[in-house]
């Protein structure tokens, strides 16, 4: 991965940079490629995820004039683009979850004990959970996965998806209820 060297520029500084000099847009890539990739790779196979992550930055560059820092940070803006790109692969996404439910995913390589424990629990219940995820509406799934995979706040989800924070809350509640039922039922 591209390492961040020295102190990090804020999103506003990054945005200011590429507004003055479009060449500096690569700094946005270097900051967010990993996060966007991991989000996409949670929803799709690795190859499609890489394609989506790369395309996200190309789309963002082409649309950079539309980025308005007053309406939110770079991160929600980029994840919104990535989410739109993921939406083009609905069938592939469904197949991805189906495959996960069937075979069980490899737990993420991480030696922290709580992660190991978590992964044991998750592995046992994973088929039900992933199947329930596949049954959510696209809008519910977008909200759930931005929160679960990328630790988005309600406000950030709202910015990314262009919906109100209230809608984020109600979608998330509905979705969590369905997921809970799947693993407790």
């Amino acid at each position, binding site marked *: *991965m*591209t390492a961040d060297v020295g102190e990090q520029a804020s999103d506003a500084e990054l945005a200011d940079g590429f*507004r*003055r*000099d*479009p*060449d500096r*847009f*690569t700094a946005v*890539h*270097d900051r967010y*490629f*990993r996060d966007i*990739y*991991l989000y996409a*790779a*949670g*929803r799709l196979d*690795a190859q499609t*995820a*890489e*394609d989506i*992550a*790369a*395309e996200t*930055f*190309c*789309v963002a*560059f*082409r649309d950079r*004039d539309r980025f308005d820092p007053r309406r939110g940070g770079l991160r929600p803006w980029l994840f919104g683009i990535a989410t739109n790109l993921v939406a083009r692969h609905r069938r592939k996404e469904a197949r991805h979850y189906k495959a*996960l439910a069937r075979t069980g*995913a*490899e*737990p*993420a*390589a*991480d030696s922290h004990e709580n*992660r190991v424990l*978590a*992964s044991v*629990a*998750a*592995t046992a*219940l*994973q088929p039900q*959970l*992933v199947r329930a*995820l596949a049954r959510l509406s696209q809008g519910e799934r977008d909200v*759930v*996965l931005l*929160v*679960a*995979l990328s630790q988005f706040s309600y406000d950030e989800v709202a910015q990314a998806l262009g919906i109100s924070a209230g809608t984020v809350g109600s979608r998330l509640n509905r979705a*969590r209820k369905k*997921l*809970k039922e799947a*693993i407790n039922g």
Partner: protein
Amino acid sequence: MDELKMLATALGSPEPSQEAADRSRHRLQNTMRGGPVRKRRIGWLAGGLGLTAATAATAILVTSTGTTTTAHPNSPPSTAAQSPLSGRQILLAAATTAEKAPAASGIYWHVKTVYTKTSKGDTDTGASVIETWTRRDGRSWVREGSPTSPVKENGGPHSGTWNNGFFVGTTKLSFEQIQRLPADPTALKTYITRHSDLMRLVGKPVDKGGMSVDEVLIGGISSLLEMTPAPPAVRAAAFRALAKLPEVKNLGPVKGGVGLQISFHDGWSRMVLDPATSRLLNSAFGDADHNASGTSKVDAAEWTNTLPR
């Protein structure tokens, strides 16, 4: 543990590889340089390549028609003697010239490119000069900016950050792959489109980055002709593949050679061809509204035996 954490664990993916990050960065940089992916394209003639005296066009008249209409460079443009060649004739003549060119060799493939951005809405960032030196094994070095800037390694063999002259469109090829490219125009077209990751944009709406097959092909061929160390027969095939496109226009003599415009469904590509050497010196893309975006001018694409330090 709640269901969201469980989901995160269940769906957790391994970190992306350095190669994936480099490939992605590269794709972005190709987009940023106003490659064919970019829809807000480049005002090419705005870069200062205005029409000049009809000097270079003379050579092409000789090579392509075999007639002896050798107007003196300083004489006024001839009016009645011959009708101007069509864009297609110019490309076919360039194919013949390319075919006859001796195959060159050296240790480093040196490419010097000047990118200019003049996009509407952009701050004019002026010209940026990129030079790369690439060995046959793919290892490459880069110098950005002035000739006194340091020469740095351009990533590993598969992860160069800058276009090192081994790209056909957005597809990076090895030296051997470039040598083995088809010498038949139809087979070359098939190769380029089959290997281009831009083909997934074909058929999409233009505002979603949609492209036509012709646009993908033109992007691939112009980079092949401008920057790669492709052998003479492949270069000839590349010119012939362009000549097969439906709309090729001769824009007349311009600085450095002759201007050509190839149109596709929602835009065009313009290029400057030096008919004497069959080199492509300059290319740019524009949309149907002639919106400006930038130019890429190739000042050198040649073999050399030394790497400046």
